[in-house]
């Protein structure tokens, strides 16, 4: 067995959670320090793993560690790293400390509890990206509802209970349907292979499911992932949740956890149900394109900043899904970059706006105006995050969006063209929001807004740096995910379309 790096990554936040509850006389660190240091240690481990990660390796997973869990069902506690999961693990590891730092004073009273849930959220996110056993994946997929449920319900706005309930019910609805599919899949596997297994690798490699069963199973999984991602029309929980949750929670939720939906599509749906994936791809692309435009249009119509961000994310998730189901290397890799870019820009939007919203306890767009003058630095950060979010070239979002669109265009030109319209809508929703909140005459409410201080600037800087970095040099993400994506392409049996004339440039 390998050195259990992945276990270390997973255990760090859990241990920190325990440490939070050890009486303070035995622990030198303050609560915030414990959480922050643990997230930094996790990041360190992830970096170590990333440096050792062999991007050319043909094996399905690396750094595997596996323990028997429920052998009778062929269930094991199997962690493993693919390029796809490494990218998302990295995103989680980077965003968590930023969120922890940025939300340091977000809650005063129940700080310990807040930190606990954030750390548990992180642990769940890491586990779900690392799981190579479908049962384990499912368990974490459902379990991670709980920390977010509490984060929303305990620390949110006035209608947080309803939002938390809605969030949880959507999650459960998707999850339970998926559970039925998971069990059915297990049954299919057991009767076909003669032994029950939940190993994702084994299920992808060895199973050939009959057409109708595969279709149903595909739909079962897709339902869960689509609700999580969220895709229109299963999206209504997200605006409500984002509106009520604190910015830190929203960052964890939308920036990281919602990626589980798209990750699931890429890492589970496609490899295990290749035929059904191919069959349903056109319909899903249609749904995704609809979501892209629908989300963008609705983002324009919102009156609340946080709701706007939520609809923007819905639009962006449409892009990610579209890239995945384009079945082209560019599209899928584009989706990977998109997930990273979206995670970062979401964090930027929510956290920057969070500093503002917290001062007034109000996120209505109309209640602000002309903030540039009183808070120029905040304005700057918000503008950069906005631009990152609307995929300004030179920022990570652009590379991602371009790759997704190009990948889709290779196979589905019309949907890609329609989706491209979103770049116009994006300019409208984001800049109009910016215009109303930050420019124009100062509103009375805005007079006593305090600008970001040095510490806050420092906290938000990594977001900006990463956005630009991946915009100018997306190679790290692309290279890491490349092999995994090419494996997925092989599973689906898709071949990249060749250029119409002239050969492709050989590297």
């Amino acid at each position, binding site marked *: 067995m390998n050195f259990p790096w992945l276990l270390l990554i997973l255990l760090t936040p859990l241990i920190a959670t325990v440490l939070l509850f050890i009486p303070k006389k035995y622990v030198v660190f303050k609560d915030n320090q414990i959480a922050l240091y643990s997230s930094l240690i996790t990041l360190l481990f992830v970096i170590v793993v990333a440096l050792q990660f062999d991007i050319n390796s043909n094996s399905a997973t690396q750094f595997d560690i596996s323990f028997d869990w429920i052998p009778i069902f062929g269930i094991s506690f199997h962690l493993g790293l693919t390029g796809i999961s490494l990218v998302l693990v990295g995103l989680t590891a980077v965003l968590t400390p930023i969120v922890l730092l940025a939300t340091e004073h977000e809650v005063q009273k129940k700080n310990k509890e807040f930190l606990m849930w954030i750390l548990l959220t992180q642990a769940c996110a890491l586990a779900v990206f690392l799981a190579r056993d479908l049962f384990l994946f499912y368990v974490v997929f459902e379990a991670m509802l709980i920390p977010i449920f509490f984060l929303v319900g305990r620390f949110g706005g006035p209608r947080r209970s309803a939002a*938390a309930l809605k969030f949880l019910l959507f999650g459960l609805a998707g999850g339970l349907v998926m559970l039925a599919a998971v069990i059915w899949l297990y049954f299919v596997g057991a009767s076909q292979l003669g032994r029950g297994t939940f190993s994702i690798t084994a299920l992808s490699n060895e199973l050939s499911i009959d057409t109708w069963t595969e279709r149903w199973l595909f739909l079962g999984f897709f339902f869960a992932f689509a609700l999580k991602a969220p895709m229109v029309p299963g999206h209504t929980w997200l605006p409500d949740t984002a509106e009520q949750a604190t910015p830190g929670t929203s960052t964890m939720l939308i920036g990281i956890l919602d990626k589980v939906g798209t990750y699931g599509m890429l890492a589970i749906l496609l490899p295990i149900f290749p035929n059904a994936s191919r069959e349903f791809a056109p319909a899903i692309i249609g749904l995704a394109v609809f979501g892209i435009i629908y989300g963008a249009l609705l983002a324009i119509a919102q009156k609340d900043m946080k709701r706007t961000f939520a609809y923007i994310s819905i639009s962006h998730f449409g892009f990610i899904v579209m890239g995945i189901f384009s079945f082209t290397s560019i599209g899928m890799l584009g989706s990977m970059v998109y997930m990273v870019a979206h995670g970062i820009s979401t964090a930027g939007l929510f956290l920057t706006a969070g500093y503002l919203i917290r001062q007034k306890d109000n996120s209505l767009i109309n209640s602000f105006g002309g903030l540039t003058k009183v808070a120029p630095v905040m304005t700057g950060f918000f503008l950069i995050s906005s631009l990152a979010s609307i995929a300004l070239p030179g920022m990570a979002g652009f590379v991602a969006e371009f790759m997704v669109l190009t990948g889709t265009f290779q196979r589905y030109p019309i949907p890609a063209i329609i989706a491209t319209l979103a770049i116009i809508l994006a300019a409208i929703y984001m800049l109009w929001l910016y215009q109303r909140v930050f420019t124009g005459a100062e509103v009375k409410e805005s007079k006593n807004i305090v600008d970001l201080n040095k510490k806050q600037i420092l906290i938000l800087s990594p977001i900006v740096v990463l956005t630009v970095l991946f915009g100018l040099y997306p190679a790290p993400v692309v290279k890491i995910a490349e092999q995994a994506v090419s494996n997925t392409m092989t599973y689906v049996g898709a071949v990249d379309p060749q250029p119409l004339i002239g050969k492709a440039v050989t590297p």
Partner: protein
Amino acid sequence: MIQTVLNSIPTPNFEYALLSPILIMFAAACLGVLVEAFFSIEKRRFAHLILIFTSLLLAFFAVVLQSGPSGRALVANGTVALDGPGWILQGTILLVAGLSALLFAESKVDPLGDSFASRASTLPGGQEEKIVTKLGWAQTEIWPLFSFSITGMLLFVTANDLLVLFVALEVMSLPLYLLAGLARRRRLLSQEAALKYFILGALASAILLFGSALTYAYTGSLEFGQISNGISSANNAPGLLTAAIALVAVGMLFKVGAVPFHQWVPDVYTGSPTPVTSFMAGAVKVAAFGGLLRVFYVAFGALVWDWRPLIWVVAGLTMVVGSVIALAQSDFKRMLAYSSIANGGFILVGFSATNRPAIAAVLIYLIAYSFATVGAFALITLIREQAGESSSLIRWKGLGKKSPLVAGLMSLFMLSFAGIPLTSGFTAKFSVFTAAVTGGATPLVLIGVLASVIAAVFYIRVIILMFFSEPIPDGPFVVVPSIFTTIAITSSAVVTILLGLFPQVIIDLVSSASVFLR
């Protein structure tokens, strides 16, 4: 002459050792009666406590020691089947009953004493009641009744004969009817619960008995194995037999609280003293399903294609109706009652798979559910107002602020009921659904999924009330219990978590023991 007659009757072969769990509890019950007769009122309680816990422990050890492969046999002339499921059910019943016993014994949470009326014979609200309450008397008859009931359960789940089944059912139920009516507070409701439970229970057991009689009339035997043989040798199932099966089914389904035979459950659960409710929702449920499994798998197994569709319908109805009505409940105990109905539906899903995984799944579900439900009911006893337990949900607002521990544990049980992974509830649901899919009951699984989502709403609402709302003024307070309740709650919580994290142990145990002897 007499000698020859006596010799012509074979001496019954009676395996005392293997039957010892049942016998121990029976003895405890009889001794309990003697304690009532011979001990002074001050010492009775103590003696009963010693007696009950010793006997429960002894019986449990007897189960553990003998439940190995060598201990599986048809005993008492084939009327009792001590097979894998039988032993596991007995063990579970003893453990869960033990937890309930701890709640029975608790006398610290209520300033007036334990949960039972000081004198059941006194008029509610009358002068006499006040006096005996002031004297601090206790209705210690609950202990022998409790022991009898456990004896009945132990026998019920291993009964391999319709007559034994009927007798065991009555031994199990009659004490319960009485126990239901013994609440210290809200005695009118408690008595009403007892009456309802009694009349409906009697009706149901009469139906069961008539079904048994018809079965006997058709097959000429009361023993499950021979009934099965008798059925298989017939070419088709004539009306007599199908009617018999239906009647037996009703009797059993009544006990498990399946729709449409469920209506007693909410009333009785609400009215009974909470420890008794926990006993009914925990141990009785286990026993009832144990009996149901054996009767239908062993005796009527040959007609599985006839009765299975009906079980499908009942299971679906039970899940949906239980979950849906629970949505509208404002009283926590009543909500848990509907939850118990709904959970019964999920167990029926597993039951309807009618294969070996189904037996294991049902057993796992029973174990997971019974512990969690006892834990939940135990927690109710701690949340009080001046007038007694505070079970009105709306008043629980902000409970998490007053007592994070109690509210947190309650949330744990709620999450387990909702089937969230990493709790025992998920393990249970997973095994039941897996069994159902394997057994070809996939549509039922889909209904189960739907019902789970509905059910999640009311479980989660409890958490929302406790944690996401501000406390109301003059709301309930949380009392610190004695060691009894503490142990009960802790064990339930531990089991709930352990079964969620490491389900392997229990799955192995149950899977290796999921074959009925016939």
